[in-house]
C-alpha cells in the first residue's frame, strides 16, 4: 500500500463516475424510502386514531415487528424470502427489472414508517386534551381544530425525533449494499477492490455521508427554531 494519499486516481475517470453514481443512488434510495415511510406513517397514525380495537392491534404489531427485528434482516426477508412467495412470472419480471433497488426501497421505507408513526403519535399525544376541547368549544370543526391548533403544536413536538430518524434512514441506505444495490458504500468497496486506494476512497465516501447527515441535522435545527419562533409570536 502507498503511504501518501492520492485522491487523483479515485476522483477521475471511471472511478470518479462510479463514486458519483453511488452518491446519486444513495440519495434516490433515501428520498424514495423517506416518501414511502412518511406516507405510510401518516396512514398508521390515522388508523391508530380511529381507535378501533382491530386497527390499533394491527398498528401495534406492525410497529413492534419493525422496531424489534434488525433492519438488515428485514431487508433480507424482502429480497430473499418475499419473491419466492410470488408467482414465477412476476419473479422473472422482477429479475429483469432492478429488483434489488425496489426491494431495498420497500424494506427501508416500511421499517422507517414504524419509527415515523411513533414520532408523530407521541407528538400528538403530548398536546393536552384541553386544546382540542377549547378549539371545539370555539366552534371549530374537527378538521379545522386539527389544522389550526393541534397539528402546528404537535409538529413542533415531533420534529426533533423525525429529524433524528430521517438521518437514521439516510444512514440505513448503506445496508442495501448487502443485497447488491450499487449505492455509495457498494461503490466504495468496488473502487477499493480495483485501485487498492483504501484510505482515499473510504475517506471520500465517509466525508460524503457525514456532509449529508450534518446537512440534514442542520436543516432540522433551523426548522425547529422557526417553529419555536412561530409559536412564540
Amino acid at each position, binding site marked *: 500500500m502507498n503511504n501518501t494519499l492520492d485522491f487523483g486516481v479515485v476522483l477521475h475517470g471511471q472511478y470518479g463516475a462510479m463514486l458519483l453514481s453511488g452518491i446519486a443512488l444513495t440519495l434516490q434510495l433515501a428520498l424514495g424510502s423517506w416518501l414511502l415511510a412518511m406516507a405510510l406513517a401518516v396512514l398508521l397514525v390515522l388508523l391508530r386514531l380511529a381507535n378501533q380495537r382491530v386497527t390499533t392491534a394491527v398498528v401495534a404489531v406492525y410497529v*413492534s*415487528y419493525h*422496531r*424489534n*427485528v*434488525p*433492519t*438488515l*434482516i*428485514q431487508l*433480507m*426477508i424482502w429480497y*430473499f*424470502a*418475499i419473491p*419466492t*412467495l410470488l408467482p414465477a412470472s412476476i419473479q422473472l419480471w422482477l429479475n429483469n427489472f432492478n429488483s434489488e433497488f425496489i426491494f431495498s426501497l420497500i424494506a427501508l421505507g416500511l421499517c422507517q414508517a414504524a419509527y415515523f408513526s411513533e414520532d408523530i403519535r407521541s407528538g400528538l399525544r403530548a398536546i393536552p386534551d384541553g386544546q382540542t376541547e377549547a378549539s371545539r368549544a370555539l366552534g371549530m370543526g374537527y378538521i379545522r381544530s386539527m389544522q389550526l391548533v393541534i397539528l402546528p403544536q404537535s409538529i413542533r413536538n415531533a420534529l426533533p425525533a423525525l429529524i433524528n430518524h430521517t*438521518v437514521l434512514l439516510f*444512514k*440505513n*441506505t*448503506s*445496508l442495501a*449494499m*448487502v443485497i447488491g444495490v450499487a449505492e455509495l*458504500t457498494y461503490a*466504495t*468497496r468496488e473502487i477499493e477492490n480495483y485501485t487498492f486506494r*483504501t*484510505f482515499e476512497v*473510504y475517506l471520500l*465516501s*465517509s466525508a460524503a*455521508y*457525514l456532509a449529508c*447527515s*450534518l446537512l440534514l*441535522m442542520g436543516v432540522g435545527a433551523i426548522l425547529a427554531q422557526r417553529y419555536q419562533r412561530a409559536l412564540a409570536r
Partner: protein
Amino acid sequence: MLDFFSIIQQNWLLFLVGQYPNGPLGGIACTLLLSLLAMLFAIPVGLLLGMARVSPWRWLSYFAAAWVYVLRGIPLVMVVFWTYFCVPLLLGRNVDGFTTMLCTLVVYESAYIAEIVRAGIQALPSGQYEAARAMGMSYLKAFRLIVLPQALYNMLPSMISQLVSIIKDSTLGYVINVQELTFAANQVNNQLLTKPFAVFAIVALSYYIICFSLTWLASHVEQRIARKRLNSPSAGAAKAALLAPKP
C-alpha cells in the same frame, strides 16, 4: 408451517451456538456475547465522552462533540470497514472478525451512550451540582459522589434500549463474516436453497423475542423509576420535616 418446525429441528444447534465445539462460537450465543461485551466496553468510553461533553474544559468538550457528530453522521457499515482496515494496521497483526466487530460496536455505540449520559446529566437539577460544590467538593468529587449516581440510575431505561440497538447493529457482523445469527441464517438458507421464507422467519422471530423482552424490561424499569420518584421516602421525609409545626 411444517417447514418452519423441521428446519428448527434440524438446525437448532447451528442457530443457537454455530459450530461451537468444532469451530468458532456462532448463532444466537455469538450475537448475545458480542452485544453484551460491546455494551460493557462502550459504557466506560461513553461515560467519559459524555462527561467530557458537559465539562468546563472547552477543548475536551469540542473533542467529544466532534467524536459524537462524526460517528452519528456516518453509517455503521462504513465504521465496520474502517475498523476492518485500521485495527490490523494499528496492532500490526491480523485480528478475527469477532474482535473487529467488537471494536466497531464499542467505537460506534460509545457516541450514542455519550449522548445518553449527557442528557442524563443535564436532566438533573443543577442545584445538586451547585450544592455539592458549595459543600467544598471538587468538580470530580461532586460528579463521582453526587451527579453520576443519580444520573446513571435515571439513564437505566435508555441504556437497556441502547442494548437493543447494539443487538440489532451486531447483525452487520455478517458483512465481515462474523458467525453470528444472521450469518447462521444465511448458512442454513444456502444449504436448503428452496426455503428462504421459513429460514428468515425463524431468524426474525429469534431477534424479535430477544429485543422485545429487553424493550419490555426497559419500559418496566422506566415505570418503576417514575413511581419511585413520585413517592420516594426521602422526598416524603423532607416534605414532612418542612411542613411539621415548629415546636
